[in-house]
C-alpha cells in the first residue's frame, strides 16, 4: 500500500528535488507529444508539488479512497503538471507519460476523469473547478468527512465570471476545508494579464469576497508550506493562496515568455532545459 499521508514530506530539499523531477517530466512529455502547455505547467509546479507531497493524503492504489483529500486542476491546460505529479506519486507507470495527447491515451490534452483514475473531475474549459470543489466540500461536510479540497486556478482564469460566483458560494457556506490557489504568473495567451483584462487588485478582490488571502512567492517552498499550514488552520472561511509565479519557471528561455503558453519545447530546447533545471 502506497498511502501517502499528510505531512509525509516536509523537507524543503526533498520537495525541491521532487519539483525538479516534475519539471523535467513535464518537459519530456511536452517534447514527446509535440504540443501542450509549457509555461503554465512550469509556473504552478512548486505549489502543486507542495500540495501533493507535503499536505494531501491519497492512495494511488485506491484513487476513490473515501478519506482522500481532493485536488482539482481547474486550469486544465496544466495537465502535464498534474500527470507528472501523478506518475511521481505512483498512480501509473512513468512510461505512460510518453503518451500525452496521443490517441486513446488516458493522458488527454486536458484532464479527463473518465479516462484516468485519480483525476477528480474533467477540466479544460476555464473557471469551473472552484464550483466543483465547493460541491465536493459540501457533500463531504454532510458525511462529516474531514477530507480537504485543493483547487489550482490560473490568474487569467479568474476573468471567468463563474470563478466569482463560486468565490461567493465558498464564503457563504463557510467552506474552510477548501484551499484554492491562484497561479499568478501574470501572463495569458494574448499577452500580459493586466493588458488583456486587468484582474488587480487580486488580493483585495478575494478578501472582499470573504476569503482568507495569503500571498506567497510561488517558487519559495518554505513560504508555500507555511501558507498551506495557515490555510489548514483557518476556520470559518475558505482560504486562497495567491502564488506569485513566473511563467515557464526553471528554464531561462521560457521564463516570462508569453509565446510559450501553448507551445511545446523542441528536442534541442529540451536538452538545454534539462541541463538548466539540473544545475538550478
Amino acid at each position, binding site marked *: 500500500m502506497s498511502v501517502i499521508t499528510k505531512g509525509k514530506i516536509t523537507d524543503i530539499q526533498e520537495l525541491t528535488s521532487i519539483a525538479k523531477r516534475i519539471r523535467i517530466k513535464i518537459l519530456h512529455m511536452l517534447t514527446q507529444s509535440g504540443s501542450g502547455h509549457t509555461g503554465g505547467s512550469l509556473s504552478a509546479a512548486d505549489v502543486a508539488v507542495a500540495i501533493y507531497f507535503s499536505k494531501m493524503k491519497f492512495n494511488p492504489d485506491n484513487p476513490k479512497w473515501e478519506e482522500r483529500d481532493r485536488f482539482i486542476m481547474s486550469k486544465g491546460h496544466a495537465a502535464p503538471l498534474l500527470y507528472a505529479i501523478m506518475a511521481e506519486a505512483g498512480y501509473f507507470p512513468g512510461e505512460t507519460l510518453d503518451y500525452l495527447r496521443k490517441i486513446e491515451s488516458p493522458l488527454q490534452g486536458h484532464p479527463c476523469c473518465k479516462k484516468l483514475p485519480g483525476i477528480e473531475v474533467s477540466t479544460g474549459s476555464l473557471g469551473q473547478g472552484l464550483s466543483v470543489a465547493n460541491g465536493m466540500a459540501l457533500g463531504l461536510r454532510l458525511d462529516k468527512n474531514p477530507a480537504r479540497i485543493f483547487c489550482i486556478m490560473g490568474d487569467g482564469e479568474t476573468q471567468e465570471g*463563474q470563478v466569482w*460566483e463560486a468565490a461567493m458560494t465558498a464564503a457563504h457556506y463557510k467552506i474552510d476545508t477548501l484551499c484554492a490557489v491562484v497561479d499568478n504568473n501574470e501572463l495569458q495567451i494574448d499577452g500580459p494579464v493586466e493588458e488583456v483584462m486587468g484582474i488587480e487588485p487580486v488580493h483585495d478582490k478575494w478578501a472582499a469576497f470573504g476569503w482568507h488571502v495569503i500571498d506567497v512567492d510561488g517558487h519559495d517552498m518554505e513560504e508555500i508550506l507555511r501558507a498551506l499550514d495557515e490555510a489548514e488552520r483557518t476556520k470559518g472561511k475558505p482560504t486562497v493562496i495567491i502564488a506569485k509565479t513566473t511563467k515557464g519557471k526553471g528554464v531561462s528561455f521560457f521564463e516570462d515568455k508569453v509565446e510559450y503558453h501553448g507551445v511545446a519545447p523542441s528536442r534541442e530546447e529540451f536538452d538545454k532545459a534539462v541541463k538548466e533545471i539540473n544545475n538550478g
Partner: protein
Amino acid sequence: MGDTTQAGEEQKQISQKMPKATRDAYGETLLELGRKRSDIVALDADLSCSTKTGKFAKEFPDRFFNIGIAEQDMVGTAAGLALAGKVPFASTFAVFETGRAWDQIRLVVCYSNTNVKLVATHGGITVGEDGASHQALEDIALMRALPNMTVIVPADAAETVSVINAVADYKGPVYVRLGRAKVPYVVPDDYQFTLGKAFVFHIGKDANIVAAGIMVDMAKKAAEILSREGIDTGVINMSTIKPLDEETLLRVAESSKLIVTAEEHSIVGGLGGAVCEFVSENCPVTVKRIGTLDTFGCSGDPDALLALHGLTTGNIVDTIKAFFKK
C-alpha cells in the same frame, strides 16, 4: 429491450383529478425522496418558490443549497456534490438551466459523467406573460446534443412523480423538463414510467402522433376526432426523448403512412428532430413536425400563445387531414 408497450392497446382508467402543474408534482416527490434517502440533496438558483424545491428546502435545510442567481456555479456545485456521493437535484427555469450553464453541463456533468439531475421548470411557451426571454424553446435540443445525457419530458403530474423516482435511482446525468402551467392527467392511473420506453396509447394504421409533455393530451383529443372521421390515428407518449425508444418508433413507422410529432418546443432539434433522424435512416415515412417554428415566443396568455404557435388539437387534426386529402 423487450416489449416496449407498457399498457397494451386498451384504454385504462385515467385520473379524473383536477389538472396539476408538473412542477408541483416534482416538489412533492423530491420531498418524499428526501424523507426516504439521505443522499438526496437539492440546489436552486433563487427560484425555489417557483421550481418547488422550496418544499425540500424547508424540511431539509442542511441538504438544500441555494446558490443564488448563479446557474453556472449551481451546476458545478451539483457536480461536486455528485462526486462526493450525493444525488443532487438542481433546479431553475429551463432557459437558464440549459442555456446559461450549457458549457458547465457539458464539461462537469456530461463529459465527467456525474450523477446530476437537472430538473428544470418553466419549459416551453406556456410560461406565458414573462415572454420570450423566459420561454425555453431550445432546451431539449441543447440537452439532446450532449453525450451521456438522458432527456425526459413528462406528460402530466402523475408521470412526473414516476419520472422523478426513476431518475433518482438511475446513475448518470439526466435532464427533466417540466412546465409552469397546470396540465390535465393523461397517463393511466397504474402507469409506471420506465426510462427509455415510450407509452403507447394506440398505434394507428393511418397516422401516428408522437408527442411529449403537454402535447400528449392534445394528441389524444386529436386522435379521437380523426378516428371518428375514419383516419385511424395512434398516440405515443415519447416522454424519454433521449435515449429514444427506437423499437417502439420503428413499430410505429412501419405501421403508419404519416407520423406527426408534437412538442412544446422548437421544431429544430427536439422531439421532431429526434424522430426524423431515426425514421429517415431506418424506416422512411413522412414526418410532419408540430412545435414552435424557428422563432422566439412572446408575452401573452398561455392558451393564446399555444394557439398562436399552432400547438393545438385543431392544428394536429388539420395537419393530418391535409396529408390524407392530397
